[in-house]
């Protein structure tokens, strides 16, 4: 007899606006407080204290325009945020400061979240959608120098890039970029040479979100249709469809694989969070709490596995935090 799905461990209220981005920073040793960063539609970034469940600080750096991406750069003191004011801001949060140290003017008017990859100590690569419709620009941070611009060939008709993921097989190897586009295809780019390595049509509708497991060379993408697509990368760097999974209701805003690669979570337009086993995409749970579209899901980076959490942010202005499958 299957158990009913669990309730959230706790719910964070107080953003007063739809939540579009979430990022945990819980990896620090005790007595550091585990934190959750959230980006909202009213332009604020809230820093939540996961012990007290209250907001520590609210950062206002995007001119009240929606913040749709937050990432930490090596610890909770350096934050990167991306907003609809066409800017990416770099924050210094050490010792209670809340200042924007640098910003990049992307001129991108869409919703494509940027992707960060640490390539060396203090050096990052960032992939972001650029001003021109189909292009992706790779910048090096913190120097903000452009590494390359990835332009699809003329007539490819991919549309806007919708989601990006930079990764490298191991430290020191070539960085590659996976980009999901408006026409439903996922493209693998070689960043250093700026060339397409492989292209795969995964969906009939735009790819809303994707995530990739570099160990197993397998990735998953969600779209506005009813299908989740799982694809793999073979030795020749070619993308192939591995499996598809049909959902009950159409529309996925976000998909993320837990760092231990055991489970993954999807954020659905039907107000549900779905949990699947990563190995075979076995449906595990449907978490029903929110009353509006779930915009983002994120797994925590706790070093102690039992403390691992899953957070989901929704249009109903709440962030639900769950402890699920933490025992394995």
């Amino acid at each position, binding site marked *: 007899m299957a*158990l009913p*799905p*669990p309730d959230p461990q706790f719910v964070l209220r107080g953003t007063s606006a739809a939540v579009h981005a979430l990022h945990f920073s819980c990896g620090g040793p005790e007595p550091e407080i585990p934190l959750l960063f959230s980006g909202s539609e009213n332009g604020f970034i809230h820093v939540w204290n996961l012990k007290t469940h209250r907001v520590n600080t609210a950062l206002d750096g995007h001119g009240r325009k929606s913040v749709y991406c937050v990432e930490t750069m090596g610890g909770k003191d350096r934050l990167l945020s991306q907003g609809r004011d066409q800017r990416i801001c770099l924050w210094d949060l050490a010792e209670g400061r809340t200042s924007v140290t640098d910003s990049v003017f992307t001129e991108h008017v869409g919703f494509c979240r940027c992707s960060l990859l640490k390539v060396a100590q203090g050096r990052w690569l960032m992939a972001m959608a650029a001003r021109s419709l189909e292009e992706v620009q790779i910048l090096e941070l913190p120097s903000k120098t452009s590494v390359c611009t990835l332009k699809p060939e003329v007539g490819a008709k991919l549309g806007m890039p919708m989601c990006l993921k930079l990764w490298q097989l191991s430290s020191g190897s070539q960085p590659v970029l996976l980009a999901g586009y408006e026409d439903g295809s996922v493209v693998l780019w070689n960043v250093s040479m700026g060339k397409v390595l492989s292209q795969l049509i*995964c969906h009939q509708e735009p790819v809303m979100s994707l995530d990739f497991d570099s160990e197993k060379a397998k990735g998953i993408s969600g779209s506005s249709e009813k299908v989740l697509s799982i694809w793999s990368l073979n030795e020749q760097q070619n993308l192939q469809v591995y499996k598809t999974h049909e959902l009950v209701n159409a529309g996925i805003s976000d998909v993320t694989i837990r760092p231990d690669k055991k489970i993954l979570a999807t954020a659905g337009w039907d107000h*549900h969070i779905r949990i699947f*086993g990563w190995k075979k995409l076995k449906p595990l749970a449907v978490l029903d709490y929110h009353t509006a579209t779930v915009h983002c899901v994120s797994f925590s980076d706790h070093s102690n596995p039992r403390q691992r959490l899953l957070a989901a942010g929704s249009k109903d202005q709440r962030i639900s935090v769950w402890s699920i*499958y933490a025992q394995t």
Partner: protein
Amino acid sequence: FCFIPGGLDCSISFVSNVLGKVCVHGRQKEILGVLVPRLTDLTKSDCIWQRICWQLVEYVPDRWMEAVVLGFVQRAPGADVLSRLLGNLVVKNKKAQFVVTQKILLLQYDHTTAVLQNLLGYLSLDGLRRTLLLRVLKELLETWSSSSAVKHSPAEQQLYISKAILLCLSHLKEPEIESCRQDLLTSMMEGMKCHLDSSLPQLRRLGMVVAESISLKINTEGPVLKFEYEEDDETRELKSLLVQTSSLYVVPSLPDHDRNEKAGAALLLVPESNEKSHTAIPVMPDEESDAELDSDDDLIPYDMSEDKELKIKAPVYIRDCIEVLTGSRSEDVDKWEATVKALESLVRKNPAATREVSVELAKILLHLEEKTCIEGFVELRQRAQVAVLTTDPIPVAKYLTSQFYSLNYSLRQRMDILDVLVLAAQELSCPKFHGKTKHSGAQKPCIQLLLGSDSSKDWRRIVDERIKSKTRRFDMGQSRVDLASCPNKFSSVAGYFFFPLIQHFDRPLATFDLLGEDHLVLGRLVHTLAILMYLAVNTVAVTAMGKALLEFVWALRFHTDSYVRQGLLSCISSLLLSVPTEQILADMTEELLETQSWLGDVMEKDPDGDCRRLALQNLLLMENLKKKLEAVPS
């Protein structure tokens, strides 16, 4: 004189005379039945026999020429045979020319399509005759594009002329089309206008098909005219005429049409399978699952039985529905859709709540426009309106009938009002029909009214059945299922539906002139009144309604639109069937006598076939009344 092998001269005029006399006495079938096949064989390759044949027909005296030519045109098995038999008769003989180019095409219309094909094909086969073909086309187009012809000539004649036009077009060659392109274009525009103006759907379709065909011929490159209409046998047959078939006999076009459809479908399937190959063969992880234990197994799934398709809940209270439908928040589009879908059943389940807000709801529904793309929006709205009207008939009927004559409504909205009134009246008078129309019998016009003007046919069917049931008194057994009886709810409200509609028809408004341009709405109004009259049988107001209706019909009886006239005649039928005989004979004898003479006129002289039939029916009904009068012992 002509020459036959052997060097003998002979005169053939005697034979021509015989042929002519026999034909004019009506024996074309017998003589030409023998003569034509024989001559066909003989003239196949022998040009002497051809010349004999030509002289044969040329020498037929003028007074018998028509019969002979007509006979040949009807009997010849194909245009090329006709050409061999008649030669250039039409060019040489004035009477033959008149018969072929004027009489058969413009003054008669009961010939078959094969006859037309023979005739027009014959004209096209020789250079000398082709000028006649062009002249014929011009005259046909003049008739086709004349608005008075469209209004007053019978539908069968218009179909005939349309066929002739299409056949002419199929024979025209490029240079000829070039020379008369401008004329074709002008005629097409004018003709299209008159046809689309007509209230009869058959005529509108005819106009559309012919206009499309003309456009196809004159615009060889670039976009052609394309209308949207329902294809039926008639339109398919017409379109097939445009394509030149070189065979002798008419080939039915329907198999071709089906084949084309299948070919189109096959083409669609091919690109799909191409797309699939793009995404490559899915990699099957067979080895993995055999070798490794599924480590997902230690992840126990939770209960997911609650996971269902997301349904937006519609409001449960009528007042909430009103809020949603009048709200302007664009975000609640899903809720708006759900409300529109659920409204009818909510109204029916909560009659008391509906009665409180009935007029407001009726107003909202009348003005409701499609916000998102819902399937069957028009039907959903109509059903909701009918539900509101039947729940609270009197105030809502007052509202709707007053709006019918108000300013600033579209024709579509006014016709919607009429449809809703009729459907509601039906439901009120026979409530068993609501929802479940499984009952057998003739009464099944409910949904048809949505599509509009075809309702007259169904009502005629019903009236026919009623007449049948009234004239045959013998025991025929149960021809219809006996319905459980219940009070007629329409009785108390019939007057509210009927009288306001009939009151203001002669008062033109700034945007609405029933007696002028908006004769389509007038036609619909008349049909609606006929139906309301029919449904009012056994009600208290029926006699008063009958009198008012009779006056109304009398005022409009010479209307030029045949759809309106059909409606007026249906009104008379309904009246005769619904008003009890005693009342008719007591109150309306004089008017009925006048009506009878008018009906006689219509039956004989009205150009529209349906009108004539309806008039005859009405006269029969009146005969029944007379019999009743005689049967009653005085």
